[in-house]
């Protein structure tokens, strides 16, 4: 053997490992130079479309805004820049669970932002809870939020549940029917995915309660491209209102195909996609009068300023539904950290009980749920304005009946 015997090498290796292990806590105890914020989001796969419109741009925008201002402010007035740790969950439940475990235990980030989608927020919820991170579940529509806040006491649900949206829709239609603008018959179609089925199930009950008759009720598989048969049958059903709980590709296709069929229901309500800025770009003047989920209070100057800022920084306008709420939620996190520091327990408590000034105005969560969502909107004068709840300041009046397609030419 040469100078280095095996034993010497093993000893040296052991010493290095021991030194590294001993050194680690010292390094961690040193003055921190940044706040680590991590997230796992669908950058590829089936969910990339939704995450790429509502969630990722707002996470990026917020981090940029905070860092441009010198970083996150702490209670002592000092500022620390945000350092982002970002993973792609590849639209897989198993990946999202593991990525969040990695953020919590390997990267030891200070806060974790929620993934996109109802299913993924539920998959992630036990992990957030186990490691003591507050979970601000934004893009998750669920009626079970009151149950979930009990099960996972660190979870916050910001997007309402299916029945909130359908109740608002039925309210608007009932109002119009009472005025005699439309009859009490509706045609409903829905996409056979969790979202579409949740909404149509809630809508059936709401319509029945409001004395509406559902004269046409169909569910179509995701990926359907030809809606002509459904449109024709709905047209012959005698219903004045056509409601589709649809996904973005379907929403765009339905808009085109109702025009081709020259089907002119007095109420045209479509699902996800109606709120996208690209919807206006694709349909222009013809979008006018079409209703959908969500909506934005365009009379609020702060919201409009946010929209302008979003477009300037990211080169694309935000949607008229979850985007502004996503940004406002991050502002709440930022403000909570400013008030109580980086302790996750304190931040959770502050988020649950505090009142926050955000782009959408003053926000106070009720039982860790955000209930001041806009539930229904309509394209009016080139903007997707909020209609419901009608009694809230900032709500616009629905304009019904929708003008026929031909008139828009």
């Amino acid at each position, binding site marked *: 053997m040469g100078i280095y015997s095996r034993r010497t090498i093993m000893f040296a290796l052991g010493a290095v490992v021991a030194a590294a292990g001993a050194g680690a806590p010292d390094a961690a105890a040193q003055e921190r130079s940044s706040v680590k914020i991590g997230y796992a989001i669908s*950058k*590829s*796969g*089936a969910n990339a479309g939704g995450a790429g419109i509502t969630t990722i741009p707002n996470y990026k925008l917020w981090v940029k805004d905070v860092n441009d201002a010198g970083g996150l402010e702490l209670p002592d007035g000092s500022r620390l820049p945000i350092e982002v740790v*970002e*993973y*792609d*969950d*590849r*639209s*897989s*439940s*198993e*990946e999202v*669970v*593991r*990525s969040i*475990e*990695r953020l*919590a*235990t*390997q990267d030891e980030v200070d806060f974790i932002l929620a993934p996109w989608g*109802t*299913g993924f927020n*539920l*998959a992630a*919820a*036990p*992990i957030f809870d*186990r*490691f003591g991170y507050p979970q601000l579940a934004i893009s998750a529509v669920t009626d079970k939020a009151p149950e979930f806040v009990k*099960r996972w006491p660190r979870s916050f649900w910001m997007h309402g549940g299916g029945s909130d949206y359908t109740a608002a829709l039925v309210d608007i239609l009932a109002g119009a029917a009472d005025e005699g603008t439309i009859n009490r018959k509706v045609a409903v179609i829905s996409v*056979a*995915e*969790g979202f*579409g*089925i*949740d909404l149509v*199930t809630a809508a059936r009950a709401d319509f029945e309660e409001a004395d509406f008759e559902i004269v046409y009720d169909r*569910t179509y*598989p*995701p990926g359907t491209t030809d809606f002509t048969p459904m449109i024709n049958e709905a047209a012959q059903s005698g219903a004045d209102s056509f409601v589709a709980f649809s996904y973005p590709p379907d929403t765009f296709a339905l808009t085109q195909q109702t025009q081709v069929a020259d089907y002119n229901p007095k109420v045209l309500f479509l699902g996800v996609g109606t709120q996208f800025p690209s919807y206006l770009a694709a349909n222009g003047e013809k979008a006018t009068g079409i209703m959908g989920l969500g909506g934005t209070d365009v009379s609020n100057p702060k919201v409009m300023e946010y929209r302008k800022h979003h477009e300037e920084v990211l080169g694309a306008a935000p949607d008229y539904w979850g985007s502004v709420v996503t940004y406002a939620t991050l502002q709440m996190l930022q403000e909570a950290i400013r008030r109580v520091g980086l302790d996750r327990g304190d931040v959770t408590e502050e988020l649950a009980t505090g009142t926050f000034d955000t782009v959408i105005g003053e926000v106070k969560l009720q039982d860790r749920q955000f209930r001041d969502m806009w539930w229904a909107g309509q394209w009016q004068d080139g903007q997707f304005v909020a209609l419901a709840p009608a009694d809230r300041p900032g709500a616009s009046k629905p304009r019904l009946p929708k003008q026929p397609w031909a008139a828009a030419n």
Partner: protein
Amino acid sequence: MFRTVLAVLFFVGALAALAWVPTQFGAYGVGLLLGLTGYVTLASAWALFSGPTRYVSLATVAFFGIGAYTVAVLSETLPYPVILLVAAAIGLCVALVVGLATLRLAGVYFVIFTFGLAELVRQLVTWYEVNVTGTLGRYIFLPISGEQIYWQLLALAAVTIGIGWAIGRSRIGLALKVIGDDEVVAAHAGINIARVKLTLFAVSATIITLVGAIQAPRWTYVEPSIVFNQTISFLTLIMALLGGANRLWGPLLGAIPLFLLFEWLSANFPNHYSIILGLLFIAIVFVMPQGVLAMVEKLWKRPARSVPENVPVGKEVVQ
């Protein structure tokens, strides 16, 4: 004989060590081991059938999804071990029905059919949920920790590799080798081709169903688009091909490096993951269609004398 005993002892020892490992890691380490063991089991189970018969199956996710969905449906009503049995039984029945109907197909027709099968099962489940139960998402609130899932998967992986080993030394293994080389010859030699293929397909599918069932409690929420994710079929296939589908340890040696690579890629290149993955798939099929093990063997043997190789399972994919 002595060597066999030694091998078994080594196998048991390794298994015990692997079962002990998660106690030394945090949640992320357990999650990593769990995902890894899941894919090792999937790839090994896939290779049980597809390796020797050279039928490239893309039905992995159909069975995986059936397993996961069964757990989601029954999690509130039955005790967990019974749910696993029910899931295995359903997987077995579906495999028998499907196998009887389709194992006469060969080559690309079988590939297309199995690809369609996953979609068919997904649409059937969706149709049932929409029209009968009126709810599409299901919740799984089972108090099963990551470690427990890992141990179950580890046991299943051991059983799968054990079955592969046993088949390799049995009559059915010999029959399979003949079928893989030439079905006509096999038929003339008096082998009941349909029965052998069906048995293997059913065993492989049942194991895959169990993997789905065991992993499901980790996701809390299940809906068809989540559990019938075609990526699972493709990853399983490419892992088995990389390692070498007609060797006992091939799928394992393909699954481990690929899984770790995917993990590394999605952590360090979240924006380029899909592109790199695509290039990798192409590289695997072109550079080592027979798998890593076969390539290593070839390099090993080259100095001595070149041995004619079998037509590999990967060739079918290339063509």
